[in-house]
């Protein structure tokens, strides 16, 4: 009896997981197929899903002289790298100070919660004022404008994540360094920082995903030179025609690096995604 029920359970489970896997993989596969499919096959009725003829023309086009994907790709890489370095460095530093200070002063504890609010308000609020600010600083259409905006969203996240990591460190570790006469800065760089490296890695990868994918704020402050990849693809959206080839190929270029990231980060993904609220 029990065994019978268990067999039903196992098969239901296998079917549900299989359906979910298909639902996740088919759209990605379809995108990839469209990026190597010739136009005639998009337009045949019924449309040919699996291409008969495979072409790499779209990839050649978008990277070629007409597409200049290379320069946008470079923009995206630069922005993401700088955002990661700035957010993780300043965020990890801030969290170290705040983790200690918030136990001493109520107003600092409150300020820490205020930082959290950055995650929960609609980002459209900042678009116009940020645009005006960047215009007045003469930073419109520069990578700096994108970097500053992304960092300001990345930092609150790094701060919250890292406070959690610091608070897991046994106090004795720091105390013994104190007895050895280490000042705050040396305790941070020599003792604490090496211990929280997994946290740093999580923070780096989460901010990289954030910055690499973000397009709303980026598209509001860049126009020509500083376009990142998502801004480039959002340009295809108004396009009513079937310009699917280049659109798919560019999307594949955006997606692939994130897939590689996930393979490395899975272990810490949950903690990162929930601002440290759930420890995986």
């Amino acid at each position: 009896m029990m065994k019978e029920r268990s067999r039903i359970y196992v098969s239901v489970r296998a079917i549900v997981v299989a359906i979910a896997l298909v639902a996740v993989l088919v759209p990605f596969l379809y995108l990839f197929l469209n990026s190597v499919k010739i136009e005639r096959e998009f337009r045949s009725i019924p449309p040919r899903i699996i291409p008969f003829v495979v072409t790499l023309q779209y990839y050649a086009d978008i990277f070629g002289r007409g597409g200049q994907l290379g320069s946008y790709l470079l923009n995206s890489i630069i922005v993401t790298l700088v955002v990661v370095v700035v957010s993780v460095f300043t965020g990890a530093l801030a969290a170290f100070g705040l983790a200690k200070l918030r136990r001493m002063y109520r107003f600092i504890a409150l300020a820490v919660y205020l930082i959290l609010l950055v995650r929960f308000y609609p980002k459209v609020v900042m678009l116009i004022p940020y645009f005006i600010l960047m215009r007045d600083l003469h930073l419109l259409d520069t990578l700096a404008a994108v970097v500053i905006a992304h960092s300001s969203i990345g930092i609150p996240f790094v701060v919250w994540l890292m406070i959690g990591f610091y608070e897991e460190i046994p106090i004795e570790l720091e105390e013994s360094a104190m007895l050895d006469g280490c000042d705050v800065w040396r305790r941070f760089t020599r003792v604490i920082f090496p211990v929280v490296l997994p946290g740093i890695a999580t923070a780096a990868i989460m901010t990289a995903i954030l910055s690499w994918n973000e397009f709303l704020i980026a598209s509001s402050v860049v126009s020509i030179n500083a376009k990142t990849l998502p801004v480039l693809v959002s340009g295809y959206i108004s396009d009513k025609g079937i310009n699917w080839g280049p659109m798919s190929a560019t999307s594949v270029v955006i997606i692939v690096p994130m897939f590689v990231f996930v393979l490395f980060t899975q272990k810490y993904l949950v903690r990162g995604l929930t601002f440290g609220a759930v420890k995986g």
Partner: protein
Amino acid sequence: MRRRNVRHEVGALLLFPLPAVIIILVAQAFPVLYSLTMSFRDWALASSLTPGGFVGLANYVKAFHDTVFLHAFAVSLQFCVAATLLEVVLGFILAYFTMGESRALRVARTILILPMVIAPVANGTIWRMILNPQYGLLNAILSTFGARGPDWLGNPVLALVSVIAIDIWQWTPFAMVVFCAGLSLIPPELYDAAQVDGASRTRVLRSIVIPYLVPVIFIVLLFRIVDTFLVIDAIYTTTFGGPGFSTNVVTLYIYWQALRYFNISFGSALSWLISILTLATAFTLMRAQRRLQSSIWGVTQ
């Protein structure tokens, strides 16, 4: 002794947050407070290049009489409730079914989280192609069964259903990974005890798994309620609010007001109304979550 040691270091400790605080003040606090002051003034870029005079709460009052905004609010609520509920339920089912450390399950979990990390613009691209009425994958599949598929994004009702489905596709993985983490924190002794007592699988689910997961459910709710209510990416990249106003959610409406019509003051007032609502929701959920966490897990975190 330790206290005093730390006290004399307060000055040094205050320097640590300084760079981060400067960036947040410049790029977050300034824009947000600027939009607050704008919401009490009268500024439409179409009629004036500089902000006009103070008008008190006029922009806020106007919001409550703006039928398009009220409609957008209703659309956002529908989106929020439907997407959050389904993501929580599906996310839990997937987490429960992929529990375990076998290689196959680990690979399955890795694949299942992929939608969550891709760029919203790429997500939009994929779904606009799948849902295309003439050449799209979905209608091609339907036609092999002899059915004529509809114009998914062109029909007002189907468009809303479609964008909700897109959000579910992209964000169910979030609920799943959080539930996976929650499940792994349940003490194994509880399962052992249940087995000794001869409890059935559903009994274990009802009496152990779900009660223990309540605080984690609140975390998922916190993130998904706020994010689905403020959704813009999935809609901006597919229907852009259409057809008509059928998928015009509040955030997109604010985007239109501020960045297309340049009604800066009105857009600011709308975004402050929405911010107050989402922040209050987030705050309430966080408090509830903390209380549940300490009462169920018996630890202070």
